[in-house]
């Protein structure tokens, strides 16, 4: 946190982080009440990454997201009303209730989709960067992926292609140190995943992903570099998830992390540390932050309300949206 920031930016970063956090808390609540069907992967603890990265982007910059994607979508400008509607399976959800938590897509604001398959979004991001290059546009693509995903073969392939084709893509590795129960200490023999960029001949950097300003400033710089030099970049953000791998993990009692470890990272909460910092620096007042908190809480309540009031799709809508160019006879129903 070396650079000075404007009040506007500070409040905006704060607001977005709180929005991500409260959103997830509400989601977990609704999952536990079975109001949200299935389960979700919460982003709690990692807010500084999505918010820091996405706040440094333009609207027409693109992202691909992951199974743990709510934070990315919100930070990139997703409307939480349609997100909640999606999570409640409603017809005006972002995906008309077809996708749920892991598939929120919104090309209008540059979201090319989340992904339930670990690592699979990374080459898709590279493909979008290829479009940018071929069409001589000047936006960039961000591909979020986890520490676990870094060992997936397609990620290797995608990074190499991005490098040899000089594509404007930033690979953002959210290293929260675990893939479900598997620690990076087990799955990797290197300290920093960002070192892997050297294997493809481009630059990488590891930063503190609990510090939103560090993430924001680095992203700004890297985006400029990538835009002007047309080279990919691998940015690793070390972070931590406070919840289980997914909402219901607790009941499984997996115990792969110690309470001490979890508490240590909770003490470095990205929201708390940032608010403390901007208060101490006199950038804003306690009241201003409280107002934001209240605003966010209201916004979430309204969004949930909006979602609850939204219509459910017709069951038979399940056979729609499969093909963009339609033909009779497909998709086949399962019975006649």
């Amino acid at each position: 946190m070396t650079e000075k920031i404007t009040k506007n930016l500070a409040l905006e970063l704060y607001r977005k982080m709180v929005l991500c956090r409260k959103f997830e808390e509400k989601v977990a609540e609704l999952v536990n009440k079975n109001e949200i069907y299935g389960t979700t992967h919460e982003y709690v603890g990692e807010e500084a990454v999505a918010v820091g990265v996405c706040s440094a982007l333009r609207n027409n910059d693109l992202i691909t997201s992951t199974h743990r994607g709510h934070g990315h979508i919100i930070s990139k400008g997703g409307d939480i009303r349609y997100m909640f509607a999606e999570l409640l399976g409603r017809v005006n959800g972002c995906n008309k209730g077809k996708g749920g938590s892991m598939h929120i897509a919104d090309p209008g604001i540059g979201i090319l989709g989340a992904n339930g398959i670990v690592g699979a979004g990374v080459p898709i991001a590279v493909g979008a960067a290829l479009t940018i290059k071929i069409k001589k546009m000047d936006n960039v693509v961000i591909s979020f992926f986890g520490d676990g995903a870094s060992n997936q073969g397609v990620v290797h392939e995608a990074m190499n292609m991005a490098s040899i084709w000089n594509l404007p893509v930033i690979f953002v590795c959210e290293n929260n140190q675990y893939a479900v129960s598997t620690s990076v200490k087990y799955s990797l023999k290197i300290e920093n995943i960002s070192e892997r960029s050297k294997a493809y001949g481009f630059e990488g950097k590891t930063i503190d992903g609990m510090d939103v300003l560090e993430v924001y400033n680095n992203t700004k710089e890297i985006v400029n570099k990538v835009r002007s030099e047309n080279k990919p970049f691998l940015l690793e953000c070390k972070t931590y998830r406070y919840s289980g791998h997914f909402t219901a993990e607790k009941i499984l009692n997996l115990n792969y992390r110690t309470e001490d470890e979890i508490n240590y990272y909770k003490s470095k909460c990205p929201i708390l540390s940032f608010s403390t910092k901007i208060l101490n620096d006199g950038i804003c007042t306690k009241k201003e932050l409280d107002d934001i908190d209240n605003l966010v809480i209201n916004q979430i309540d309204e969004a949930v309300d909006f979602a609850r009031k939204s219509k459910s799709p017709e069951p038979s809508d399940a056979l729609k949206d499969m093909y963009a160019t339609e033909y009779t006879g497909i998709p086949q129903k399962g019975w006649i």
Partner: protein
Amino acid sequence: MRNIYYLKAVSEALFNEMEINPDVVVIGEDVRYSLRGITKGFIDIFGPDRVIDTPISEAGLTGVGTGAALSGLRPVLEFQICEFIFFAFDQLVDQAQKLRYMSGGKLKAPVTYLIASSGARGGMAGQHSDNPYPYLLHSGMKTVMPSTPYDAKGLLVSAIRDDDPVAVFLPVNSLGTKGDVPEEQYTIPLGKGEIKKEGKDITVVSTGHLVKIALETAEELESSGISVEVYDPRTLLPLDRELLFKSVKKTGRVIVFDDSNRTCGFAAEVSAIISEECFTYLKSPVRRITRADVPIPFNAQMESFVLPDKEKLIKVILKNF
């Protein structure tokens, strides 16, 4: 006999095989802490050399399983989610499944793929709800899908002891069901189906968790005077054709009730072989009840709409008379 959970029966089968045979090792994502519950506590008994966590590298770890099998181990690979198969597809259908043949019988790959939960589990949507066994059947891979705890234990043991790659699909909707299972280790041979209920009027070929639904349906229809025979192939490849044909020749009517995609699915194969072998016995067309050919949608009502269920089965059965 004890009444235990399906999941427990699976766990027990694997545990016992590991106890008996030091070459049996389990390899997969999160098997030490046992996200899926099958290998719970195994690490304490068998240690990290035999309960091996992998990074998220499905193609690679499947190849590792093959290499381990070729060189003297008998690995059981736990596939945490069934879509795993897609990343590992080359290693499954183009490597493990073909190596023996291409080597003229010199190589042998005794590996078991334990697909720890297959099918729609409610709200997991398009990429966590598939039932991808027809992809493997098409490659000629031996494939098992037990419908009861008893079958699960006996078939998994046979799969592990088989000298070829065998895929064992555990239907997610069966894991929490209970049934009688002997304490001791036993085997159910691959390729042996079972008539789960005898009947006279129509044969329902049902697989995995749908067997239970077929049985319930059979019971319900008893009162309407329709006598339903429920055939459970248990092993999808090799398929117990003799038992199937016997049933079809008796009833003259067949419905294939299967929860995989329709086009080129398991039901298509069963329909085609029945046509070929029992043509003159058929009183009505072989009918298929399958998934619709779409990814599983998230919304609960849409999800039900595309999945095979009792309502659809009853409707189609009644149509046949």
